[in-house]
Every structure is written in structure tokens, then in C-alpha cells.
């Protein structure tokens, strides 16, 4: 029990420290911290599902886009409040994730990856089509009084919620079931685990959190169009950062997000034409040299120093 109290305390201290960032800096570095916080929430939530199950989800971009787009449509076209639309977006994305999960998660992982691979692009096409043909092709404005600091704190709250959720899962039957599924799905079924339901529930949680993040980020752009928020690239970045950090520990993705956000930022500024190439090299580096992420490297080092 003391171990649990201690990890909760450490978590609380980290959140408090992170919350102080806007007091220390604003402008450029705050915007980088904001981006990092966004990916911390997304990658950690991604890893909660994909880590134990080994199902690689590329749906983050789609759920994120739903969050941003629904907030924009609701505020711009229907005069709804930001908070209501944030809630609606999260519910819609969760339900969509549930439907996708029911259709694909009973099958092999390959089908799931393929299905999520083009999902953001497909939804973007659909949304653009609906907008162009039925709603008139206007841009959508998200006008709020939020400053970067506000957005940052909201993202921090989501990230903290993801960690708390992960911490809770790890101690629940659901988390234990997920671990067993990741080991041997056949055994899981035959000891009485509803494998489909377990996977779908976790996948829905990634949809929920990604849509929340997308909704919260929307005010940062003020002007939203489908091409901006339904970005397939985002899905890949989430996967890379999580894998780079390591998915078998709750805090693993965090270790990947921070350095990767900085490098990504640097590359986008200095050599913007090489971002795609770099993304590819990052994937290859992870697969061939750090298959268990930074967490795996750390654990190996500790193992060696003990032995």
C-alpha cells in the first residue's frame, strides 16, 4: 500500500511542477511545452491500449480531428459553448471507437492497423464533402478567451486524468485481463475473459482522450478546416513517441515525447523538407535498435549494474 501512496505522491508532485511552467516562461517555450503536453496525453493513452494488446492503432488523428472539428462546427455554426462541444466531441469519438473496435478487434491485428491507417483521411474526405455540398464551404472560427497557458493547463488536466486512468487500470481486473490477452489470447478466452469487450473498452478510452485533446487544441488555431485537424501525420507521431519511450510502463511514453517533441520542432524549423524522411528513420531506429523503448534501455542498464 505504501508503494501505491508513494507513486501517487510522485505523480502529484510532477503535476504541480508541470502546472508551474506557464509562470516560468511564456511565448515560444510555453508553446513547445503545450505541444509536448498534448502528445503526453495522446501517447500515454495510446500505450494503455496498444502496449499490452500489440494492436497498433493509427486512429489518433481521426479522433483528434473529430474533437477539433466538432468544437469548431458547434461554436461557429450552432452557437454552442466550447464546454458543451468538448463533451459532445468526446462522446462521439468514444462511440465511434466502440463501433470500429467491434468491427475490427475480433480479427487479427493486421486488419485493425489497415482499418485505422486510412481512417483520418477517410473521415476528412467525408467531412469535406458534407461541408462543401450541404453546409456551404466556409471556414470555421473558434473564438475563445483562452490563452496558451489556459490551453496548457487543460491539457495537463487531461494528461493527469490519463495517468490516473492508467494507474487504476493497472490495478483492476480489466488491466489484468489485458495483460493476459497480450500474452496469449486463446488462453485469455478459455480462462473466461471477454477478450473482445476488454479490447473495445480500452480502445474507446483512446478515442475519448484523443477527442478531448483535439477539442482543447482547437481554440489555439482559431480558424479550423478539415485538412488542418484530420492529420494522418499526428497518428504516426503518437505511435513513434510512445514506442520510443516504451509502452510497457505507464510513464514510458513520457520519456519518448519530451525529446522527440524537441527534435521534431528543430527539424520542422531548420529542415522542413526532411520531416517525412526523419519520421521514417525514427521508425526504423526504434524497430532495429530500441525495440523496447527508452524504458527498455534503462531497465537493461539497471539490470547490468545490479548483476
Amino acid at each position, binding site marked *: 500500500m505504501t508503494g501505491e501512496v508513494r507513486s501517487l505522491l510522485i505523480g502529484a508532485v510532477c503535476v504541480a511542477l508541470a502546472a508551474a511552467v506557464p509562470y516560468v516562461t511564456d511565448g515560444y517555450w510555453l508553446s513547445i511545452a503545450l505541444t509536448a503536453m498534448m502528445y503526453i496525453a495522446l501517447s500515454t493513452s495510446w500505450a494503455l491500449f496498444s502496449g499490452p494488446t500489440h494492436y497498433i492503432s493509427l486512429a489518433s488523428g481521426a479522433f483528434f480531428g473529430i474533437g477539433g472539428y466538432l468544437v469548431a462546427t458547434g461554436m461557429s455554426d450552432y452557437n454552442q459553448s466550447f464546454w458543451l462541444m468538448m463533451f459532445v466531441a468526446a462522446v462521439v469519438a468514444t462511440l465511434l471507437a466502440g463501433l470500429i473496435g467491434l468491427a475490427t478487434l475480433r480479427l487479427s491485428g493486421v486488419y485493425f492497423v489497415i482499418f485505422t491507417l486510412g481512417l483520418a483521411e477517410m473521415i476528412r474526405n*467525408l467531412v469535406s464533402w458534407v461541408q462543401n455540398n450541404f453546409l456551404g464551404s466556409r471556414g470555421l472560427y473558434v473564438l475563445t478567451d483562452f490563452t496558451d497557458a489556459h490551453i496548457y493547463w487543460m491539457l495537463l488536466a487531461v494528461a493527469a486524468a490519463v495517468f490516473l486512468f492508467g494507474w487504476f487500470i493497472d490495478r483492476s481486473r480489466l488491466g489484468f485481463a489485458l495483460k493476459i490477452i497480450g500474452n496469449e489470447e486463446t488462453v485469455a478466452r478459455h480462462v473466461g475473459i471477454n477478450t473482445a469487450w476488454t479490447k473495445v473498452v480500452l480502445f474507446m478510452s483512446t478515442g475519448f482522450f484523443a477527442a478531448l485533446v483535439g477539442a482543447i487544441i482547437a481554440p489555439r488555431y482559431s480558424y479550423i478546416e478539415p485538412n488542418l485537424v484530420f492529420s494522418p501525420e499526428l497518428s504516426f507521431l503518437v505511435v513513434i513517441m510512445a514506442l520510443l519511450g516504451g509502452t510497457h510502463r505507464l510513464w514510458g511514453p513520457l520519456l519518448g515525447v519530451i525529446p522527440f517533441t524537441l527534435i521534431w520542432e528543430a527539424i520542422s524549423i531548420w529542415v522542413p523538407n526532411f520531416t517525412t524522411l526523419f519520421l*521514417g528513420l525514427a521508425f526504423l531506429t526504434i524497430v532495429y535498435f530500441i525495440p523496447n523503448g527508452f524504458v527498455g534501455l534503462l531497465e537493461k542498464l539497471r539490470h547490468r549494474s545490479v548483476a
Partner: protein
Amino acid sequence: MDILISGLLLGGTYVLIAMGLNLQYGVARIMNLANGEMIVLGALAGFWLYMTATISPLLTIFLIAPIAFAGNWLVYRLLLVPLVRRAGNQGQLEVDSILATFGMSFVLVGIMVSLHGEYFTYSFLASPLSILGTTVALNRLVAFGFAVVIGLILYLWLNHSRAGMAVRAVSVDPASARLVGIDVGKVSALAFAVGGMVSAMAGVLISTFITLDASVGVIFTMKALIIVIMGGVGDIRGAIVAAVILGMVETAVATLIDPGLTLAAAYLIFLLVLLFKPQGLFGRAPV
């Protein structure tokens, strides 16, 4: 009628793409998500040789074939074999190969963007032609003809040659194939290389009638995967039917509703397949 004919012509090229991927996934057991980039590389070669040296794309097909074959063979030997060795089970190999081929796909896109960042636009055999009252561009018809010929050669090779027999044996059961003296590693490399070669050749054909750019590969990967899954992994007959269905549905949606919805249409088909026939159109339930 328009839709039927255009759809059929498009489907012909899709068959070729799906055959390439089928060889790579069905035999070498590698889910190659960089397959679309192989198509785009072929298209880029077709475009570039035509623009700089006015080499006919129809000749480029044969120029690029040996290069693509060698390139894919090397990729399999150098990058994928280590993953096959390392993986404890099929699931692990699947995850690793998906991530690795994603990496390769991005690297290839990155390189192609720096080579030629704009659209691969050129005009080749663009004259209109009338068949059965429908007007189609000559280049589509020629591409279809070439696709049929290449597909037929591939089919004959698989079914009537010693090497083709070995490829089919590995696709059905690698363990048993090993027992009858087939070098599974070698055959897998061969299948992967031939698969990549066919994709690149299809890419040259496609470039004659569709304008591509460096980043469009992933769409082709998606379509090829949908066709392979709909037709059933390793099932050539199924892939042909599936490719024609996809070609027709896409053409129908593009002409009747909106060209922007072809991907959504492909998704709808995919979803139906996953829900009702996940083992493929002609597939039997897995044992």
C-alpha cells in the same frame, strides 16, 4: 455502361497491385506497408524517364523490373530477415514488420519528395477511343492490356514452373514446405522481390493515366490491402474479383456522387468484408 468499362479498366491495374502485395504477405508473411511507395517509385521512374529522355513508359516497365526486383530482394534480405529471426511468433513479426515497413515507406516518401516534390504530370497516349459506345482514353486501355499480360505471365509462372510451385507451397504451409526440401528463406525472398517488382511495374502503368505525387503511396497500400483481404490472402482468383469490384464501386461513386468519396467507398466495402466475410470472398472458415 460507362461505369462498367472504366471500372473494369481500373480494376485491371488494381489486380496487379494486389498480386504484388499478395506475394509479399501471402508467401513471405510480411505485411508490407511500403508497397504503395513501390508503386509511386515506378510511377516516378515512368514520369522522369519520359520527361528527360522521352522513353516510353511501356519500355520503362521492363527497364525498372530488374531494378525493383533487386531492390526488394535486398530489402528482404537485409532488413526483414533480421526481424523474422528475432520474432518469437507470428504476432511479434507482424508488429515489427508493420513498424519497419512504415519506416521504409516514410523514408521512400522523404527521398521522393526531395527528388520531385510536385505532381508527376505528363501526357502519354491521351487520345480518346470509343469502345461499345463509351469513350475511354487510349492510355487506360493500353495499361489494362499490359496489366492483363503481366498478370497472366505471373499466373503461369506460379502454376506451371518449379519456382512457382515452391512459392505456392510456402504460401500454404511453410513448415511442410521445408520438410519436402524447399528453402523457405530463399523462396520468401524471391516472392517478396517478385511482389515488389510487380508493384513497381503497375506503378509505371498507373502513371500513364493517373497523376500521382510522392506522398500518395499510402492510398495505394490501403486499396491493395482491401483487395487482398476481400479476395482472401493468397487467393489470386479472389483478388481479381475483388479488384474489379473495387474498381467499379470507386468509378461509380466518383461519377455518380463525388470523386472525393472514393476512399470512403473503399472503406464501406472494407467494413462489409470485415463484418461478413473476414476470410475473403471465396475463403473457408479458418481451422
